[in-house]
């Protein structure tokens, strides 16, 4: 075989692998575009600036949680306690503002601390006590939601100070604040995931815990960090929600874990750990909210919406499983 043919062949193989990586990594991008096209055709009101901003604002809370869940999943685990954490962090912040008259920024810090603390407990259970992540966070999911009801007697905490509404309902220029917070979270998460040792190590641990351990990586520390991030971001989402609703609702964030996990998985995060991209998660979250928004515009009943969410999650996992098998 002549050198030229070999070379041509090599280039061809490279092109093929390139296409394949784009396909597998950014498959979700195509899905989002396809969905936008379909909905634009089906509904007149879909492709308007107003609706797009609406979609982004609605997606922001789940999208922020999805980032935390992403880190937990990439580390080889999962976090299903995030929905409950949204509720707990929200009501504790609301209470600290209403009952203790604390300044708003202090309330926010307390809220974030509560979420991070729930994450710390998850992390300790998983890393130090070797409890399977699903079970550990299932436990905290129940316990944390219960605690929220105990603290509030299941009544909403209302009478919040005025300044708080900026976070959930304010605008900077034409852009709603939650969208800005979401974008900041994604940029930071991208930097952490792609450009710091924390990200590198979390990927390594999820990819091969034993090899990471034997390379001298303090795996417990980074796994705990992943869960703390997850809890902290759930709390951030809870704070935005309190601000939007102008009250601390004890059942806030119910089922958010479902949408967050779906966003991460639809965005290409592998449930077997060690694989995924922040950009993928963003598109995953957008996909889910566009889908839901589209169904509302098309007057599809909310029962169907719930069904479809479940089906989308299963389809996404099927793709993930098939992809892992292919290698």
């Amino acid at each position, binding site marked *: 075989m002549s050198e030229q043919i070999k070379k041509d*062949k090599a280039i061809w*193989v490279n092109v093929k692998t390139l296409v394949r990586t784009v396909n597998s990594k950014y498959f979700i991008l195509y899905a989002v575009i396809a969905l936008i096209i379909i909905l634009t055709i089906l509904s007149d009101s879909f492709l308007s600036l107003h609706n797009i901003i609406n979609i982004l604002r609605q997606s922001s809370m789940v999208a922020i949680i999805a980032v935390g869940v992403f880190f937990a999943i990439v580390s080889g685990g999962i976090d299903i306690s995030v929905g409950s954490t949204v509720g707990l962090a929200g009501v504790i912040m609301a209470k600290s503002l209403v009952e203790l008259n604390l300044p708003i920024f202090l309330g926010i810090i307390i809220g974030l601390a509560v979420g991070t603390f729930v994450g710390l407990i998850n992390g300790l259970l998983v890393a130090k006590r070797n409890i399977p992540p699903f079970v550990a966070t299932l436990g905290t999911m129940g316990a944390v939601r219960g605690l929220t009801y105990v603290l509030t007697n299941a009544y909403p905490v209302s009478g919040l100070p005025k300044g708080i509404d900026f976070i959930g309902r304010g605008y900077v220029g034409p852009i709603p604040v939650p969208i800005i917070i979401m974008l900041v979270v994604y940029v930071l998460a991208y*930097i952490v995931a792609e*450009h*710091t*040792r924390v990200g*590198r*190590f979390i*990927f*390594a641990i999820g*990819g*091969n815990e*034993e*090899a*990471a*351990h*034997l*390379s*001298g*990586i*303090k795996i417990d520390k980074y796994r705990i960090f992943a869960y703390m991030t997850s809890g902290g971001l759930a709390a951030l989402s809870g704070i935005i929600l309190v601000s939007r609703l102008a009250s601390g609702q004890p059942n806030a964030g119910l089922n958010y874990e479902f949408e967050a996990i779906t966003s991460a998985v639809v965005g290409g995060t592998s449930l077997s750990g*060690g*694989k995924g991209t922040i950009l993928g998660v963003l598109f995953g979250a957008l996909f889910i909210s566009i889908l839901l928004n589209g169904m509302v515009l098309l007057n599809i009943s909310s029962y169907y919406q719930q069904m479809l969410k479940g089906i989308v999650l299963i389809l996404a996992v099927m793709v993930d499983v098939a992809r892992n098998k292919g*290698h």
Partner: protein
Amino acid sequence: MKILEVKDIRKEFPGVLALDAVDLSIEPGEVRALVGENGAGKSTLIKILTGVYQPDNGTITYKGEKRTIANPLEGQKLGISVVHQELNLIEHLTIYENLFLGRPLMKKVAGANLIDWKRIKKESTALLDRLNVRLDINAKIHDLSVAQKQLVEIAKALSFNCEVMVMDEPSATLTDKELEVLFTVIKDLKAAGVAIIYISHRLEEIFNIADSVTVLRDGKHIVTLPIHETNRTKLIEYMVGRELGAEYPNWKRNPEEPVLEVDHLESAKIKDVSFSVRKGEIFGIAGLVGAGRTELARAIMGIDKLKSGTITYRGKPSNFKDVSQAVKKGFGLVPEERKSQGLVLQMTVRENISLANIKTVEKGMFISKKLDRDTSKKYIKLLRVETPHHDQLIKNLSGGNQQKVVLAKWLNADASILIFDEPTRGIDVGAKVEIYNLLVELIKAGKSIIMISSEMPELLGMCDRIAVMHEGKLMGILSKEEATQEKILHLAAG
């Protein structure tokens, strides 16, 4: 009379011609060694013989009849079975449950089909008796040694009335003593007329057990010879396609002062072990599987808890509490299981190289793309890692090149005590020599190496001193001059 004959087999995968006009035929009672480097096409050929793959071209003749083998089960039913390198047994089930897994013997009770456990147990005992091995059929697989598991696999193959048995690297994890048992079993099978295709990287044993040998290289059939018409050197030349030169490098051995002192070390698996390793020395550790060699490495690295004893490194007490401490102080472990312990397979070459010392590629809080890339490129060049790109996924590299990346990781971590656990397991002959040469370069650069190995020639060829372990104890330390295979075996047997 041939029992199995394949002619002109061709198999192409996207971008790779795995087999190109390969012929192979075998007679009943013949033991045929199948050798070749990784990627030579051995596994593909085996998979075609057993029905996992279908050939693109060529014929398979079994017992004088041309046929296709649609899937492994059909192959097994015909009488062609494989004993895999990675054993396919279910760990928490018993021997007898595994032997008849997926095709239980049934009985009818009151019209219902139930599993006939009594008959299964009886048949299982009979199968093990045929192999002349003493194993309790009620034993759970996870309580068996690797060697015993292999015997169970062989028994399973026999239960299909196997007439052609393919053994895929059966010896990779066996000690010499266990190997003897395996060879006895092979001889019995041979006497019973079973044709055996024996794949191995260990050439010594091929001369022990095989009648004939087939060499594959780059998907092509190179030669088939009666075993007595060839020798080790020639075989290697056929496999590599060129003259190899000396297998073990020659260098001016010049170990300096002791740097690592291990004093009365005790852990759950090792008892009262003491030795010292010098700067610029290769210190070998021999012993049977289960003798505590890997556990000794783990104890030194701070992975397993120490009960008592002290480790001193360059005069400083160095009983590490965890691996990260050991790594910081310049200790590195190249583990036995490259894929499950040494590398993060879904990461790139680049990402694996910087894993043990991320500091070297960081600028402030962030990983610098440039430093990361340059570091990986440096080691790819230094260790001559064959990879199309530093961003290639590590799982796409050959075993030898993967091992080089593990080594690169420790060089980047500036490790000066390197513990190699079976450094050349599953690595091609050609790549082995490269690894040996790299070890020598490390030694010359003033590092110290502890080399755990089950391959006696490797220990004898490379080590300045060889410690022999048995049941967690260190039985003796032999200098290069006094060490022989016999002496090591004698100590290893306890």
